[in-house]
C-alpha cells in the first residue's frame, strides 16, 4: 500500500506536463480553440440545413444533433495533440530515460495521459458553458444526466488512453507511427461517432458500434447527455464502459510486457 502511495507521489508532478506544454505554445492553444469553434459552427450550419423544421432522424431532432456534434468535437479535438509520447521518444532515442527512473514506465504514461485528460476536461467544461450560453448546446435533462455524463467522459478518456497506448506500443516495433497515427485518429473519430453522429450509420453498424469500445471512447457520454441513451439505460451504458475499460487495460498490460521486453532485450 505504502509502495503505491510512493509511486503516485513520484508521478504527481508529471500530471502537470501536458497542460504546461500546451500552455507554452500560445499559437497552438489559440489554433486549438479556433479548430473547435469552427467545427461546431460547421456542424450547426450543416445540421440546420439537413434537418427540415420539426423533422427527426434516428429519433433525434436538430437541437440534439447540434448538441451532440458540439460536445463530441469538444471531447475529441484535444486528443490530436499528445504530449511526450513513447513514439516520439523512441524516434529521438530518449525512451531510455523513461526506463531508468524510479517510476514504472506504464505509470509514467498514465501520468502524462491523465494530465492531458485534465487539460481536455477543462476545455470541455469551458466550451460547454460557452456553448450553453450561446444556445448551441442544449442544457442537460437533469442533474443526474449531467453527473452520468461527467462519469462517462472520464471513462471514455481512460478507454481512449488504452487505445492511444496500443498505438504507442506499435512504435516499439516500427519506430515511426506518423502514418498509422493519422489513420488511427480518423478511424477512431469516425467509429466513435465524433465526426458523424452514430445514428446516421446503417442499422447493423449502429448495433455493432454501440457495443464496441469505439463508441465507449466518445459516443457514449455524448449520447447520454442528449438523451439518445434513455435514463433507464444509463447504468447499463456505464457498466459497458467499465467492462471495456477493464478488458482494454488487461490487453494493454499484455502488449506492454512484450513491448518492454523488446526494449530491455533489444535495446529499443
Amino acid at each position, binding site marked *: 500500500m505504502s509502495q503505491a502511495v510512493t509511486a503516485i507521489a513520484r508521478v504527481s508532478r*508529471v500530471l502537470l506536463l501536458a497542460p504546461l506544454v500546451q500552455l*507554452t505554445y500560445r499559437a497552438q492553444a489559440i489554433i486549438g480553440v479556433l479548430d473547435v469553434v469552427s467545427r461546431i459552427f460547421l456542424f450547426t450550419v450543416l445540421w440546420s440545413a439537413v434537418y427540415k423544421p420539426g423533422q427527426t432522424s434516428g429519433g433525434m431532432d436538430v437541437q440534439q444533433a447540434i448538441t451532440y456534434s458540439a460536445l463530441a468535437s469538444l471531447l475529441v479535438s484535444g486528443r490530436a495533440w499528445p504530449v511526450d509520447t513513447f513514439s516520439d521518444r523512441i524516434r529521438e532515442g530518449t525512451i531510455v530515460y523513461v526506463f531508468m527512473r524510479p517510476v514504472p514506465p506504464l505509470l509514467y504514461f498514465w501520468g502524462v495521459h491523465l494530465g492531458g485528460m485534465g487539460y481536455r476536461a477543462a476545455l470541455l467544461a469551458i466550451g460547454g458553458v460557452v456553448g450553453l450560453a450561446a444556445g448551441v448546446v442544449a442544457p442537460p435533462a437533469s442533474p443526474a444526466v449531467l453527473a452520468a455524463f461527467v462519469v462517462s467522459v472520464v471513462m471514455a478518456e481512460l478507454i481512449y488512453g488504452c487505445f492511444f497506448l496500443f498505438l504507442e506500443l506499435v512504435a516499439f516495433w516500427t519506430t515511426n507511427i506518423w502514418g498509422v497515427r493519422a489513420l488511427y485518429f480518423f478511424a477512431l473519430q469516425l467509429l466513435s461517432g465524433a465526426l458523424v453522429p452514430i445514428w446516421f450509420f446503417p442499422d447493423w453498424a449502429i448495433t455493432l458500434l454501440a457495443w464496441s469500445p469505439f463508441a465507449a471512447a466518445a459516443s457514449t457520454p455524448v449520447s447520454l447527455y442528449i438523451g439518445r441513451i434513455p435514463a433507464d439505460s444509463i447504468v447499463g451504458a456505464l457498466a459497458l464502459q467499465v467492462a471495456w475499460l477493464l478488458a482494454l487495460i488487461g490487453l494493454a498490460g499484455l502488449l506492454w510486457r512484450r513491448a518492454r521486453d523488446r526494449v530491455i532485450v533489444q535495446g529499443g
Partner: protein
Amino acid sequence: MAESTPPVIVVEGLRKVFRATRRDPGFRAAFRSLVAPRREQIVAVEDVSFSVQPGEILGYLGPNGAGKSTTIKMLTGVLVPTAGRAHVLGLEPYRDRTRNATQIGVVFGQRTQMWWDLPAVESFLILRHMYQVPDGIYRETIDELDEYLELSSFWKAPVRQLSLGQRMRADLAAAMIHRPPVLFLDEPTVGMDVVGKERIRLLLAHLARERGTTILLTTHDLGDVQRLCKRVLIIDHGRAIYEGGLQALAELEGAHRRLEVRFAEEVAAPVIEGTELEQVNAVTAAYRFPANRNPQEILAPLAARYPVADLTVESPDFEEIIRLIYERKREAPDATSSAGTEGAEVKGETATADAEAKAARGVRGPRGRSG
C-alpha cells in the same frame, strides 16, 4: 589502492548480443526486407569485466561503437545482459530497476533527459518529485549545483532555447537532483567549450572527493581523463583492451614525450642518443623520446654537452597513446595490453608481464566479432 571496502560497481564477464535486421540500400532490398527480413546477430559487448571503488572516477574509453553505452545501459537496468553479471551497490540493475534507479544518476550527453518545451527548472521539479527529494535537500543540492555549473542565469528558459553547453550543464544537474552515490556519465562534455568543461570537471572532482560519489566516465575528451581519472579501462569491439593506471598508460611502450630546449647560443646539430630530433631552429630544438625512458638519461648528457638556457618536458600525448592502443589491437586482435603499476590488472586468462617495458600482453580466446 584500498581494498578493504567492497567495490561499488562490479561487472563480470558481461555480454550483450542484439538481433538486428540488416538491409542493403535500394528499393528492391527494402521490399525484400519487408517480406523476409534478414536478421543478424550483433555483439555489442563481447566480454567485459571491471570494478569501481567508492569515490573512484573510472575512465571508460573506447572508439565509437565499442560498447560503452551498451555497458552503461546494462548497469542502469534498461538492458538485460545476455550473459555475465553486473552489480551496482549490491543490486542487480535489471532485476531491481526501480531501487537501482534511486541510487544512480545518468547522463547520455547526446540525448537530453529534460522536457524540451519546458524551462530547465521545471524538469528539475518533475525529477525532484520522481525521486522524492525533500524540499530542504533539494534546495541545498540546487544551490550547490548552481555554484559549480552556473545554472540560474538560464534555467528559466525552455530547454530547446539553451545552447549545447547550457543544456549539458542542466542535464548534468538533472541527473544529480537526488544526490545519487553512483553516476554514469556518457560523454558529459561533448561539444562544450573550455570554460564549460572546466566547470563540469571541478564539480565531478568535488563530488568524488567530498561526497565519495563513484563515477563511471565515458568520454572522447582526454583532458577529462587526465584531470579526473587515476585509472582507465579501454574497450574496443566489446572487449577490454587496456586496464590500468593513467601513469602506467603514459609509460606504455610506443608512447612518446616531447622535450623543448632553448640554448644560450646557436648550436649546430644538437643530437642526443635515444631521441629523435624533431625540429631545430638556431637556438631552439624539439626532441621526441619514448615516454617510458627516464628524462634524466636525456637531460644529463644534454646539459653536459650544450649551453641550455631553458627546457620543458611535455607530458605524454594521450591521444597518441590511445590511438596506439587501438591500432595495436587491430594488428593483433587476440592481445590485450595492460600495464603494471598503480593497481593495473592484466586482462586475460594467461598473461605475462614485461617488467622492463612496464607493459604486458595477455592472450585471450578467439575473437568473436567481425567488423
